[in-house]
């Protein structure tokens, strides 16, 4: 099963991405009001889903698992790091595609809307997380500090969100669901939207796995280096 997942994840991510592109670009109709611009709905919400929920959620859970003494392991630290790197990329993409949509719709590249501002602040915090990791060489120190920072960020995000929401809100209302949880879009558009979520989620899984493997190999290399250093150290003689 593991082998199947390992082999199939990449091709599945690629295939679903291509399918989303074909469906979103060629098969679904343009929107009555927004025209082709509305096709961003097949990218932007799925990017935000990966950035704000999947990636950041994974990083938060992995960080909590690292901090909990019974579940502490460097595996959790590596997953958290991989998820934050993916989150940073997808936050960037979310902001970029949001801006591309916002310019013709709102007339400006940037608005001080709650979701946008919270996402941007989260992006800066994620950059801070990556900076923090690079400022500490010792793997255990790095893991602990990064995990605490990730938990602090998770606690902060709702506070940031509410603060900006009360400050000002302009964002496009719910696109996919109405308040009664009924679908607002139908037919091929709904299926393509659903497919985009699947495709981006698979891409997230593939990227985190790939990044985790790199971190795992780096850790393996560090272990080998330590073994070699231990051998060298043990052969030192009194001067």
């Amino acid at each position, binding site marked *: 099963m593991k082998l199947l997942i390992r082999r199939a994840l990449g091709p599945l991510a690629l295939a679903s991405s291509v399918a989303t592109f074909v469906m979103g670009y060629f098969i679904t109709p343009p929107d009555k009001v927004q025209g082709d611009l509305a096709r961003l709905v097949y990218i932007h919400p799925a990017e935000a889903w990966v950035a704000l929920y999947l990636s950041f959620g994974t990083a938060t859970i992995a960080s909590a698992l690292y901090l909990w003494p019974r579940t502490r392991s460097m595996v959790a630290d590596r997953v958290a790091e991989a998820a934050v790197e993916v989150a940073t990329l997808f936050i960037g993409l979310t902001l970029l595609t949001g801006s591309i949509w916002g310019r013709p719709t709102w007339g400006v590249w940037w608005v001080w809307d709650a979701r946008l501002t919270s996402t941007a602040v989260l992006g800066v915090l994620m950059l801070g997380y990556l900076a923090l990791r690079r400022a500490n060489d010792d793997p*255990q120190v790095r893991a602990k500090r990064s995990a605490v920072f990730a938990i602090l960020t998770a606690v902060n995000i709702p506070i940031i969100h509410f603060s900006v929401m009360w400050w000002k809100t302009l964002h496009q209302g719910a696109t996919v669901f109405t308040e009664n949880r009924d679908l607002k879009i139908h037919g091929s558009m709904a299926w393509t939207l659903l497919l985009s979520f699947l495709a981006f989620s698979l891409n997230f899984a593939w990227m985190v796995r790939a990044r985790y493997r790199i971190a795992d190999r780096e850790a393996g290399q560090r272990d080998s*280096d*330590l073994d070699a*250093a*231990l051998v060298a*150290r*043990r*052969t*030192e003689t*009194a001067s």
Partner: protein
Amino acid sequence: MAVASLCDVVVTAGSFPLLSGVTLTLEPTVTYVITGSNGAGKTSLLRLLAGLEAPSRGSGTVLGFDICSSQRRELRRHVGWLGHEMSFYADLSPVENLKFAARTTGADVAAITPALDRVGLAQRSKVPMKFLSAGQQRRVSMAWFMVRRPQLWLMDEPYASLDDEGRDLLSELLVTAQTSGATIVLTSHGLLPPEIDAASIVMVGGRIAKVAS
């Protein structure tokens, strides 16, 4: 029961092994002197015994506390430490520093003034630590040992920076501690005064090369 029991302990800084596999048993009420060239791992071993370093590999207990777990914090409360660098806060005076330390650990605050008198700092007890010489700062640490009376004394090059009077004072302090049943581990590059009866631990390349009583 042994004061410390270490089994193949490795301590790293980045990917450099400060200790490359230390196996050692320390018996109670014995004084040990660790010798070895620069970089042999003497200070790292002391820090490990103090619960200030976590092992990357291996296992061990000190004063019954597991040094691989969060028990290290509890261990620290039972050891005394004298290091190379200035202890405590540079902007506070010896009295203020020792009062803070005593109040946080429940040690006897009334013992501070006599201890500072004994180490010859009665006149300088209210001067900020940063204005004291290296030798005087060491004397403050010695006064803290007198107030704290720890079970395990860990001293890194304790005779360094001390004048003759300071060295005599330290020897007297160590002999008193020995007779009162404390275990002492200190590092030294030179010979110890003859009144200190110590077992020798020789370190080479981050491990124990020889233990001789």
